[in-house]
């Protein structure tokens, strides 16, 4: 960081006379969770050149796709879920092997791992049919989805959008560090989130998603949809915030978890194990 040159106004950031324990100073509530933020203007955090946030996603909550201008590293403190990261240009390598209509009718309440296993079967040779709608219904395709659980580290490059869904029975808690002094953050030393969907919620009425600032006509031309649907994407009347409650089953193509990984014995070996 020194080699890239520290701006003059930041040169005395680390003249700290004493250090203290820090607590979150701001809470942004959403429909199915909240984001707790530490004050990034605190001298200690300014010195470190970082910002910290804690994401609490309630059961059945979906943290909507969001990207940041700085690199981010996170730790899953509690709970389990699934996540997806958008890597521009990468193929949609995860595909459903059966139409969505059938999944919703026949798989409600089914265990997550079993779903993934069933979908994997018969997936071969179906690529040509993905993303089409016909007599058999519609099959989805999307980028990689991964399981996350407590103890996991998650790293995200700047600009890569991420979503997270809580699949567990307890709140999913993730603590994240944003390296806002990193060379790859070329904006100022403020943590900046860019939401692809959702809104700021009731407490941040002014904060819209990235599509809300475009003329709906241009958006409709870019996405080749009607203007009404383009306006829906702008979430103008949405007060749910950035963590929303998923109603009904949340079905995305994903591989099953290994049984040992699911089990607590994976984390806590027995006395006979070496």
């Amino acid at each position, binding site marked *: 960081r020194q080699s890239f040159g520290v701006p003059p106004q930041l040169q005395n950031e680390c003249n700290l006379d004493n250090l203290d324990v820090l607590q979150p100073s701001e809470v942004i509530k959403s429909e199915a969770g909240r984001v707790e933020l530490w004050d990034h203007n605190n001298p200690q955090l300014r010195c470190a050149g970082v910002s910290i946030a804690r994401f609490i996603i309630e059961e059945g909550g*979906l943290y*909507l*796709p969001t*990207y*940041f*201008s700085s690199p981010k590293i996170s730790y899953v403190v509690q709970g389990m879920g699934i996540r*997806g990261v*958008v*890597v*521009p240009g*990468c193929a*949609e390598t*995860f595909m459903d092997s059966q139409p*969505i209509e059938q999944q919703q009718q026949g798989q409600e309440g089914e265990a997550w791992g079993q779903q993934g296993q069933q979908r994997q079967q018969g997936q071969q040779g179906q690529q040509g049919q993905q*993303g089409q709608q016909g007599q058999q219904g*519609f099959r989805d395709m*999307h*980028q990689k*989805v991964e399981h996350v659980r407590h103890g996991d580290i998650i790293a995200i*490059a*700047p*600009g*890569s*959008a991420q*979503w997270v869904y809580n699949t567990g029975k307890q709140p999913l808690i993730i603590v994240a560090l944003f390296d806002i002094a990193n060379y*790859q*953050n*070329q*904006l100022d030393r403020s943590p*900046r*989130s*860019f*939401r*692809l*969907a959702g*809104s700021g919620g009731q407490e941040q009425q*002014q904060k*819209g998603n*990235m*599509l*809300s*600032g*475009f003329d709906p006509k*241009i*958006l409709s*031309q*870019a*996405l*080749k*949809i009607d203007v009404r*649907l383009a306006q*829906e994407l702008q*979430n103008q009347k*949405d007060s749910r915030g950035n963590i929303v409650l*998923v*109603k009904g089953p*949340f*079905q*995305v*193509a994903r591989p099953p978890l290994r049984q040992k990984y699911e089990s607590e014995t994976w984390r806590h070996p027995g006395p006979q194990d070496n």
Partner: protein
Amino acid sequence: GLEETICSMRTHESIDDPARADVYKPNLGRLTTVNSLTLPILQFLKLSATRGILQGNSMVLPKYNMNANELLYATAGQARIQVVNDNGENVLDKQVQKGQLVVLPQGFAYVIHSQGNNNFEWISFKTNSNAMISALAGRTSALRALPLQVLTNAYQISLEEARKIKFNTLETTLTHASGGQQQYIEQIVEA
């Protein structure tokens, strides 16, 4: 050793030659990028550049810079440029003409849109030797990469509407600014 390395380092590259285009669509336009992979000295400078030619009634699909700031200088013609900040606010919606400069900060989403018979040409300088963009519409876009279930819950729309959002636009970078039969023929050919 310097004579054979530093002194002989290549420091220029043609970016205006249509034959070198990285993105090319007849009747729509082209884009050419020079970065550290095509001009290695840019690795040291941490800079790169993109040359764009946009013909009338076409648009550069909405996108944002993932790891760089961009300075767009119009070299010919005019186009409407819209920019959206991290609050989802429209911070620029103007007709940009030859000789004018637009700053596109990292992460801010923008769209370039040429109307009528107005062609638009520009050069963009980016503050990263390997600047990366992420599209918000099209075959390689962020929306396309998301599962339908994420889209339906995020935007409170039906599966069918989510399907349209993901799959209707088959292009990756440039598209027609208005619908029409020709557009769909080209989509089919491209697919």
